[in-house]
């Protein structure tokens, strides 16, 4: 009924669809950063979309399962091995009790998703099993020798897809940006800079935000902004002028102006962009 972590990788966390609806209490939404990959992994093993998966970061992970399960690995492409033998990525893989599932380092992209039939059965906090790195809610990031329960039920037969269409993680990130609510706190030149210049994903990026290197954005209004609510995808500009694209573990309120918002549909690609990836914004006015 469990799996054991043999190798936790750089950062492997339990993720589901997160805990929306609690932002007013300071609780981040959290959840899988690449939601389509999380959903696909669950679909391939017969789980509902809300079942918890494991989200790896760059270096993969390895787990031993203590009962027969169906597993699937999606998201960032990587080598998959079962008891040392190559196995399919992006397809259901049947594991016997005692099998070792090894998920290799991402060959491109950042985050792979491991689904197991029945889902990861960690305890829920406010209805979600997601690890939230900002506020420390949910299970701690995986460590070697950790044991995680596996849910017992399989709710539907696994999808036996012949072909899984899957976009390759981006070599260059192009992010639509709906300007506002505080674009008027920046000079017109700042918006032009944002539209014309190449930014780069910084190594300081994490589940809280995609931090970007590049030309600083110039403020028009220099006074302090009273704290205000923030949404997923908000592009906040701290005093150093370098934009941060907020991802699932973002703080729920913030005190620096948000120049624009990247729509949620563009964020899975952002979550798969490794450090160094060039980023372009395509600003547009709201409605």
């Amino acid at each position, binding site marked *: 009924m469990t799996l054991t972590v043999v190798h936790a990788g750089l950062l492997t966390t339990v993720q589901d669809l997160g805990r929306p609806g*609690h932002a007013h*209490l300071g609780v981040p939404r959290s959840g899988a950063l690449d939601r389509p990959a999380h959903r696909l992994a669950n679909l391939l093993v017969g789980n509902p979309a809300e079942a918890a998966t494991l989200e790896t970061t760059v270096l993969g992970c390895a787990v031993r399962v203590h009962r027969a399960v169906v597993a699937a690995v999606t998201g960032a492409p990587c080598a998959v091995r079962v008891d040392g033998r190559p196995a399919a990525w992006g397809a259901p893989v049947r594991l016997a009790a005692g099998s070792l599932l090894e998920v290799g380092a991402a060959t491109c992209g950042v985050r792979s998703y491991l689904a197991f039939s029945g889902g990861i059965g960690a305890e829920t906090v406010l209805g979600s099993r997601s690890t939230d790195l900002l506020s420390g809610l949910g299970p701690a990031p995986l460590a070697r020798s950790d044991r995680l329960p596996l849910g017992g039920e399989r709710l539907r037969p696994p999808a036996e897809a012949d072909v899984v269409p899957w976009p390759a993680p981006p070599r260059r990130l192009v992010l639509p940006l709906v300007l506002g609510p505080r674009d008027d706190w920046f000079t017109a030149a700042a918006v032009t800079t944002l539209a014309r210049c190449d930014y780069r994903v910084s190594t300081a990026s994490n589940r809280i935000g995609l931090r970007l290197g590049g030309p600083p954005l110039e403020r028009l209004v220099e006074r302090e902004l009273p704290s205000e609510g923030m949404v997923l995808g908000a592009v906040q500009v701290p005093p150093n002028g370098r934009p941060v694209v907020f991802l699932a573990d973002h703080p729920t309120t913030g005190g620096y102006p948000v120049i624009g*918002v990247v729509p949620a549909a563009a964020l899975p690609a952002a979550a798969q962009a490794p450090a160094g990836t060039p980023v372009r914004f395509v600003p547009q006015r709201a409605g």
Partner: protein
Amino acid sequence: MRALPVGLDALLIELDSPQETAALHAELLRLRAASRLPPVREIVPAARTVLLDGLDDPRGLARELVGRRVPPLPPTAGEVITIPVRYDGEDLSTVAALWGVREEEVAHIHSAAHYRVAFGGFAPGFGYLTGLGEQYHVPRRAVPRTAVPAGSIALAGAYTGIYPRSSPGGWQLIGSTDAVLWDPGREPAALFAPGARVRFVIAGGREPADGSDADGSDADGSADTEGAAGR
């Protein structure tokens, strides 16, 4: 009232004062409870704004809300939560100096005020409490602490806050409490929700110096305050 679009499915409503912000927040909660608000995922009040996230038609709602007459918030709206405090914070002397009072008076001034949870956001369970007179607003510490103990009562700007767990922080520490601000195993997990009213009482049984709330309104569900006796 001004409605600013936020992304494709959210609205930031900007108001002129904290009072109007609290009133609009209460009105939005009332409309939602009465099923008179379109489906919305988050309603997040803040200092001068209320964010509505997860809307199907943000522009339609913006048209409906702007120009709407929002009834002012009655001062007694919201449940009262009582927090016993040991006024023993490391910055007590700094705050006393900023206020121009003796250290002992800080406890009496701070516990005499009526507070309201204006908004949250720094950490799960953290509330930005307004209510302290403007003459008592203090700046943040020049150098933040790397670790502020859980239960610390702290001041910054117009706000009082209580750290739900140990975390870095730059607010001025005036005291501590055993009240549990955040417990995911409890329903509700957060002791403070926006809109709640808060009283601080000096731990050890002494009531606020001004004798207000002499009815001893401790019966407010702050059940996590046992063991809060003075040092």
